[in-house]
């Protein structure tokens, strides 16, 4: 079990690490348009499969919605 901050909320996630895609699936985040940052660094969409979230990470998942 690892503890992370997800959008400023503490979360417990099974395992030692999880890919960004797995995290999105685990949290049931179905939005297609996103900006994701781990510990202040942008994770590009092409890296969602390979980028890992680890114990203690500060993760932001921003949902982008149309309008302007």
């Amino acid at each position, binding site marked *: 079990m690892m503890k992370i901050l997800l959008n400023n909320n503490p979360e417990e996630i099974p395992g030692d690490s999880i890919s960004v895609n797995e995290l999105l699936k685990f949290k049931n985040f179905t939005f297609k*348009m*996103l900006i994701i*940052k781990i510990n202040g660094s942008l994770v590009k969409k092409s890296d969602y499969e390979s980028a890992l979230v680890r114990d203690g990470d500060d993760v932001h998942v*921003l949902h*982008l*919605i*149309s*309008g*302007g």
Partner: protein
Amino acid sequence: MKAEEITKILSRKTVGIAGCGGLGSNCAVALARVGIGTLIIADFDVITVGNLNRQYYFFDQVGRKKVTSLKENIARINPDVNVIACDLRLIPENIPSIFGGCDVIVEAFDLAGQKEMFLESVLGAMPSIPVVAGLGMAGWGMNDTIHCRQVDNLFICGDEISEISPEMPPIAPRVGMVANMQANVVLEILLKNE
């Protein structure tokens, strides 16, 4: 800070605005009124009658390019503002060269996919430049749901919920609120530590 001091500081600043629709045109006008030195505005679109329910254009400008018309409208409000009008489609390849010299960048696109492309490009290529994004402003009412929050160098203005749809169109009051909130955040960033 006195009005003259604010104007003096802002006259040395450059702000980039990506998209000249409801958010971009209103935000640009607010920033022009307070005397930002240089505004870099980018959009490829032309004005339609349907845009006039929220965008800072006039009926006699329908059919003309948004960047050209916005530059003219700003010149009528504050001719001291240097407006660099970029009539083009923003893509990851041209974003750094257009906005690389800005003190702050405003994300003012309409579609979520465009917002994603732009924010990923800016946060990836120019992480030190603050970006102010508009997220969620469709419909009317619900004043108290509109907020501003900061994630590192990214500032988010809007309700982060109300997506546009046929039943929830983007219309002047709420779009204008978020556009002016973005301009207000830009000022907060530019006047900090001055």
